[in-house]
């Protein structure tokens, strides 16, 4: 049975149903089902969020100044981005202006997250979809050394002896029969295309990146005290600055600033000498595999982030771009307004929630979340032992958010497409240089590989932005400004009786926003629409499929029983399922919080 979706995909549910559950190497839990035809091509895709925690209802009645700590625990991978979004929402509601230094420090912390998350995502969650560590055993260390020196002449770890040592370590590991994380991988699947030398080089960098990555987050340990889950405050940052006198050892002083600066340098070096060259090298060997574009060439959304100047969240002041592109028209970038009830709406006809009228979508200010777990009539199995889902009914713990009715992709590629379409100079240059290096046309950007490459390019750009804000911080301290917090409205007695606000950021995996309502100094309502709610969205009432689902369509799989291609494309979004949380009531039934606009 073939159907065309309004967003332009031809679904055909005949053919073999293949289930991947758990879909590993992501944050949280998800399931994926596809129909694969006799041509070994995916003709139908169904993605399901398989966890739900209900954090937003837990927030109700709490102190808004505490909300960052709760929402930060939505995700420990994109740790901090929810906290930042939360303090922004509270500051928006209470009209609190933060000092410039606090803006610079927050930006440095948020950029560390972008870089760390992108790097760890590529090497530790995604690389094994492209790189075969078992095949690395066949490599000639000398040839690997030559390859390394060719793709990244500045990287110091490139001698034949170095690669021989790593290979021997790998060899002992494999021969032990205890394969650990590599156990039951798909190592003889023909979808792996790299020659052994590239596999050895990339596997070596898997280990180098694992050993290096914690360095990146030291900026957050210095400014926020720990990581994951550093500390933040409404009104600024908790770390005071003091570079003079006897008290300087009690605060951010010259030693701490040097520490951060050094970390930024090391991070930039690693990204530019290891991550970027690997992406180009691996991209070059996979550039014939351009599946997975999905919605990226049609509809993408970015809220923007990294304000140049404090307290100005307008598109012109944001260094990560803001805007929406729809229907594949790169000539027009639409402005995005998170307060407009007509723009962002969530639908639930295919989600395990219930609305009084499921034909309509609701803006987060008016959101209702009544959980309602049930399987459709054509599902196979039982309620607690799902064999196959029925996507014509409810089938996911994720709601279906839409921007003006469109299913949208968010994330690094969405940000880069918006940046490119807006004529953003730096982003355009990065994209053009990469396309030239790989000798591929612009269409190649709209693919799994494009998503993976955009993430790396963004990591590089974030390194430079980090240096920018570090310089800015030093310049202001030099000019005599050490202020890091605005406490005028710290005391709840200074707050209005009722207030509401919106905070947004770009999480590593895409556009994120929190909507808060405060009443009598307590949280009256809290709603989050997170990146994986956009990307992992199920179908909506019009039958539009979501970004994960769209990206799998028409992909050829080598061996239907081994999901390498499905993993490769879903991973390219860096899914974060713990984020896809929504509200319910205490007793688990009555929850309808009808809100006044």
């Amino acid at each position, binding site marked *: 049975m073939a159907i065309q979706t309004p967003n332009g995909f031809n679904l055909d549910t005949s053919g073999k149903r293949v289930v991947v559950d758990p879909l590993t*190497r992501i944050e949280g839990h998800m399931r994926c089902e596809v129909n694969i035809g006799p041509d070994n091509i995916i003709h139908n895709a169904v993605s399901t969020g398989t966890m739900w925690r209900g954090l937003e209802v837990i927030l109700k009645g709490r102190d808004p*100044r505490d909300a960052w700590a709760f929402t930060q625990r939505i995700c420990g991978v994109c740790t901090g981005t929810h906290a930042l979004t939360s303090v922004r929402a509270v500051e928006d509601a209470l009209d609190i202006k933060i000092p410039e230094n606090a803006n610079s420090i927050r930006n440095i912390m948020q950029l560390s997250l972008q870089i760390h998350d992108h790097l760890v995502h590529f090497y530790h969650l995604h690389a094994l979809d492209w790189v075969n560590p078992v095949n690395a055993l066949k490599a000639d260390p000398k040839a690997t050394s030559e390859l390394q020196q060719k793709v990244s002449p500045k990287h110091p770890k490139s001698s034949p002896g170095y690669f021989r040592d790593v290979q021997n*370590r790998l060899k002992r590991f494999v021969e032990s029969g205890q394969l650990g994380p590599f156990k039951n991988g798909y190592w003889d699947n023909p979808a792996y295309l790299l020659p052994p030398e590239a596999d050895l080089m990339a596997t070596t960098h898997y280990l180098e990146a694992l050993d290096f990555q914690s360095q990146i987050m030291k900026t957050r340990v210095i400014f926020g005290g720990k990581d994951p889950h550093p*500390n933040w405050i409404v009104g600024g940052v908790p770390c005071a600055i003091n570079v003079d006198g006897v008290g300087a050892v009690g605060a951010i002083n010259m030693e701490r600033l040097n520490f951060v600066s050094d970390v930024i340098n090391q991070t930039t070096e690693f990204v530019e000498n290891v991550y970027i060259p690997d992406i180009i090298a691996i991209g070059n060997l996979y550039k014939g595999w351009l599946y997975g574009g999905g919605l990226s060439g049609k509809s993408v959304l970015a809220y923007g982030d990294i304000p140049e100047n404090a307290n100005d969240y307008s598109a012109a002041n944001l260094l990560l771009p803001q805007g929406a592109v729809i229907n594949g028209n790169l000539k027009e970038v639409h402005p995005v307004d998170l307060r407009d009830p007509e723009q962002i709406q969530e639908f639930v006809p295919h989600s395990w929630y219930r609305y009084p009228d499921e034909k309509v979508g609701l803006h987060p200010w008016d959101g209702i979340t009544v959980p309602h777990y049930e399987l459709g009539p054509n599902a196979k199995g039982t309620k607690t032992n799902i064999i196959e889902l029925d996507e014509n009914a409810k089938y996911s713990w994720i709601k279906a958010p839409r921007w003006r009715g469109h299913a949208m992709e968010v994330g690094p590629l969405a940000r880069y497409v918006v940046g490119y379409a807006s004529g953003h100079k730096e982003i355009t240059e990065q994209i053009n240089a990469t396309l030239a290096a790989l000798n591929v046309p612009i269409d190649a950007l709209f693919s799994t590989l494009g998503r993976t490459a955009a993430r790396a390019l963004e990591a590089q750009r974030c390194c430079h932005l980090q240096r920018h804000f570090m310089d800015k911080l030093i310049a202001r301290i030099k000019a005599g400004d050490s202020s890091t*917090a605005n406490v005028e409205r710290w005391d709840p007695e200074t707050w209005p009786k009722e207030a509401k606000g919106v905070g947004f950021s770009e999480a590593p995996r895409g556009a994120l926003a929190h909507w808060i309502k405060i009443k009598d100094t307590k949280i009256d309502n809290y709603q989050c629409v997170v990146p994986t709610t956009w990307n992992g969205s199920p179908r909506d009432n019009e039958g539009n499929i979501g970004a994960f689902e769209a990206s799998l369509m028409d992909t050829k799989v080598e061996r239907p029983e081994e999901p390498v291609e499905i993993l490769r494309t879903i991973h390219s979004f860096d899914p974060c399922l713990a984020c896809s949380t929504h509200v319910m009531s205490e007793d*688990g039934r009555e929850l309808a919080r009808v809100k006044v606009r």
Partner: protein
Amino acid sequence: MTETFYEVLRRQGISRRSFLKFCSLTAASLGLGPEFVSTMANALETKPRTPVLWLHGLECTCCSEAFIRSAHPLASDVILSMISLDYDDTIMAAAGHQAEAIVDEIIEKYAGNYILACEGNPPLNEDGMYCIIGGKPYLDQLKKAASNCKAIISWGSCASWGCVQAARPNPTQAVPIHKVIYDKPIIKVPGCPPIPEVMTAIITYIATFEKLPELDRQGRPKMFYSQRIHDKCYRRPHFDAGQFVEQWDDESARKGYCLYKMGCKGPTTYNACSTTRWYGGTSFPIQSGHGCIGCSEDGFWDNGSFYNRLTNINQFGVEANADEIGLATAGVVGAAVAAHAAVSAVKRARTKGGNE
């Protein structure tokens, strides 16, 4: 052949001489005679790595993220050389039924000899279907994996206590591991997340000494959780002297005074943050200017705002407020220091006399 513990040490630059010394010290500390040194050395040189199944329930993955940030040992050494991390859905190559097959294989092949590491917790509402693995409730997977394990490590506050999803009103009825598994030793390593170096220390302790760490009555390793953050806080002298931060970014904040009045929960929180610190000693929350929020304590989400002052600290006496305490302790500490100096002087004199 597998890379053994000995080989790992060798690769990290430890000589055979040091290795044997390590073995004899370990043997002595375990109450074993010198004749056991060679046995121990032999065991560490040849034994295969302990399989670990690392399951994820309702959680945020901050524990895994913390674990990979350990400065010593590096996570790569733990994963590749000290244990065999056979199942961990966050990093494993396999997916779907190939992943699930690993759980079945390990519980069979290594019955009684593998460690179950739990990150996150099971929800009980909706028949457990708020967390689905392989089409079934996570609770099923947890119970299966626990059935044959040697011991369970409950990573973080989710597995140990319930943490944020179990905060009021706990919509999914999420419960810690010990509420659903009763018949296995459980080591709780609370914290949101735990300190990276504490996580790897627990693993290496078990691999090195071949025993489980000594636990307190609540099931936490005594070596890291027996003292309050306040007990070893480097800002403690400011507390004792009555020097407090009164507002964010005030003069006292810039001098690094005590954060008690800003709501610091260090006085009631058992953890190693003020001693071990984070990322190889880089910093910890109080050092970076924010009070401790008590993230390793049971139910810390439901103890009022993170910025409310603690009012139930014993050493403060009854219902005294911090301003009074500040004044009082400044006086008392002054007297105590004088008394302490006097006693020390007497002790020194006695010792001297004894020696001569």
